[in-house]
């Protein structure tokens, strides 16, 4: 009993999220019954959430250092478009299957390299030049999306090898491949952020850049690593999207940016920096996916209402967090 109590006290945020998760789960089950509790629903949820889950983790990295990365979706799309171009140029119809897989692997590698460059650019603008993250990444978002638009002339790129979509849409022992990718990336993110010197330093940087300097940390390097991490996770999301849609376009996943911010903040990452953890973001991803699937089950709630729902929810969560923080501050003062 005591160990449970301790665990609850240690991570109040995670406990709160798990309670919300259970509440949402019960609510969805009560309201939609067998439609919600069905293998097919769980399978489709399992295919959907990894891509924006990865984008949310990418977002969480940057909120963690009191920044923000508005270019996550743009990087995902740019990587997907580049991969689609690359694969459609190099793969000829009668190529052997193993060669195709090698090409796909090469395309993934290229996507990761491009994302590292994109992230490094963000980190450079923020860490070296000193531009506010929100403006720097707003600029690079337009820049990266712009490149993708020019490359595609604004149209959808198809003609991908069927092996790519087959792999992404398949499952290993019934577990969809996107989930496996998500779990691997999320585990790495959680480990780096909460256990390693890098994660510790990023948390400190997010709390106070000045004190971080006086501790002898290289803030520029930390900012660049931070935004590179964010970009690489975005690229992983882009790869999943490419396989799932079996096509690439400059403006896929337009609603994901908003959702990524919502999930990161709901997951307990403090937009003022220095607080939060990846486990919270993971639970929040699943909560948002459940709400999203549940809303889909109402035919009279059109997709056009989504913006209102997510926007409203984000503002609600921000207000809620503000209230909770104020209360904790008062309690800390009294103690």
């Amino acid at each position: 009993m005591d160990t449970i109590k301790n665990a609850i006290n240690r991570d109040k945020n995670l406990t709160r999220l798990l309670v919300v998760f259970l509440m949402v789960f019960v609510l969805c089950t009560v309201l939609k019954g067998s439609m919600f509790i069905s293998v097919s629903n769980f399978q489709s949820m399992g295919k959907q959430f990894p891509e924006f889950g990865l984008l949310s983790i990418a977002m969480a990295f940057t909120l963690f250092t009191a920044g923000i990365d508005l270019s996550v979706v743009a990087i995902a799309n740019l990587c997907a478009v580049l991969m689609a171009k690359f694969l459609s140029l190099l793969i000829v119809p009668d190529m052997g299957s193993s060669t195709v897989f090698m090409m796909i692997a090469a395309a993934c590698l290229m996507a990761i390299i491009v994302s590292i460059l994109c992230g490094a650019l963000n980190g450079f603008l923020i860490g070296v030049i000193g531009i506010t993250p929100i403006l720097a990444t707003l600029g690079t978002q337009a820049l990266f999306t712009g490149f993708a638009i020019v490359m595609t002339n604004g149209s959808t790129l198809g003609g991908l090898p069927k092996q790519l979509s087959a792999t992404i849409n398949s499952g290993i022992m019934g577990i969809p491949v996107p989930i496996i990718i998500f779990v691997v990336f999320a585990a790495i993110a959680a480990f780096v952020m909460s256990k390693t010197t890098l994660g510790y330093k990023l948390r400190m940087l997010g709390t106070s850049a000045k004190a971080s300097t006086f501790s002898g940390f290289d803030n520029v390097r930390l900012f660049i690593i931070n935004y590179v991490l964010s970009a690489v996770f975005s690229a992983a999301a882009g790869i999943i999207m490419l396989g799932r849609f079996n096509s690439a376009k400059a403006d896929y996943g337009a609603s994901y940016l908003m959702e990524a911010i919502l999930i990161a903040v709901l997951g307990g990452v403090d937009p003022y920096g220095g607080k939060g953890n990846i486990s919270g973001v993971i639970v929040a991803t699943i909560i948002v996916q459940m709400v999203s699937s549940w809303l889909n089950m109402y035919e009279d709630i059109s997709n056009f209402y989504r913006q209102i729902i997510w926007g409203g929810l984000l503002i609600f969560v921000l207000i809620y967090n503000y209230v909770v923080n104020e209360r904790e501050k008062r309690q800390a003062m009294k103690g």
Partner: protein
Amino acid sequence: MSAASLLPITSAAIANKYCVEARGGEEVSDYIIKAENIKKYFGGVKALDGVNLEIKKGEIHCLAGENGCGKSTIINIISGFYTLDSGTIEIDGTKYEKMNPKQAIANGIQVIYQDLSLFPNLTVMENLAINMEVAASRKFVSKARMRKIAEAAVAKIGFKIDLDETVENLTVGMRQMIAISRALLNDAKLIIMDEPTTAITKREVKSLFKIIKQLQAQGIAVLFVSHKLDEVFEIAERFTIFRSGKNVASGNTSELDQNKFTYYMTGREIISSHYEYTRENAQNVLEVKNLSLKNGFKDVSFSLKQGEIVGITGLLGSGRTELAETLFGYHAADSGEIFIEGKKVEIRSIKQGIENGIGYLPSDRVTEGLFLSQPIVDNISIEKWHDYANCLGKIDRTQIEKMTEHWAKELSIALHNIEDPVGTLSGGNQQKCVLAKWLALDLKVLILNGPTVGVDIGAKFDIYELVKRLAKHGLTVIIISDDLPEVLTNCNRVMVMQSGRLVETLSTQGLDESRLAELAN
């Protein structure tokens, strides 16, 4: 120590005294404020446990006590921001069970907080007049009307200033004058100043005291919160000292001396002794030759031996902070050489500074020294993370917790849990955390910039003793400070800086404070 002359207050004594007075003169009170048996709880924690505070009309009264003794709580109760849980407040003969800020202001009570509550981006005139304009609920402001208000305000204390200057361009001392003039606009009868001298220079303290005397001449009482005894002596007639939410002593300041004052504040006897440097044939640990930094300092040369504690003093802007920051690697020197243990070294980044065994306790611990919202354990262990991490970078949490517990004990840091944010600690304990972080490294030189600013007397002496002990063990320490007694007792040598130059290096043995003050100004 004679207790009789100092009237240590017991509740019974107070109760008796008050009964007599209550029967005596009802009509005209000699006191502007009489707070009796005030209790205040926060949650289950007692902040004030039946304290009394009485201030006569037109007197300068000093309230002293360590952090957390309830000073700020009583100020907030008198000014109506906190409601008291029990007790009474009598203002100018009228009793109040409860009071709100509006009533307090209407009764002529004004508080000047440490942050002064000014708008840095507005002009002096706007700062002075804005409250009145808002209070009159005007929709449009008139520059002419505002100027009149502002002129009247500064005239009250005969203070000359350009009304169109933006406040952020002014010194803290001048800002204080503005806050005082603003308080006077509301017909103040009692002005409460919360540690007004912590952030201003000696010269500014002098002019502040002149103004306090002027206020007194106008019949305004001043409650002066401070724990610097020399100031208390100079300005206050009577004093009240709190400790842990209780009255410890009150009386006339003429009956007080340094030892009693410290004893009342801390509850323990503190004896500080001069640091005697006894090492013979010690080697040079830090040597600086012709070091220069543009807009900082010029041609600075000195050498420090192992185990020395050397003070650097001089006015703000004398280049002392820049010199310290350059030795630590925050600035890269434009020219000159630095030698550590006889070897020439490059210190062009903080990383290099730390690698060369130099630690720096910054003057602003809140923004530069600590990560306030982060746990104590992370703040103390920060420089050791790499040593306690495996090849994947995973930090061994139990190890850093262990080292934190060790240093918390070593430095007697008062804390509940090492996972609490460091910002929940008192100033003195926060400063000890910064020290612990550096002591965990095997340093050669530790530079302390204003190590005891905003630190309680008790913690202050703890820090002095610790530094002396470390120096005895071979650490070389530089103390940058305005506090001349601090430099004189704790350093064996002192260097004086003036507009970027090192003008004098003296032994503190037999050095007179006034002589040092002369050199530093």
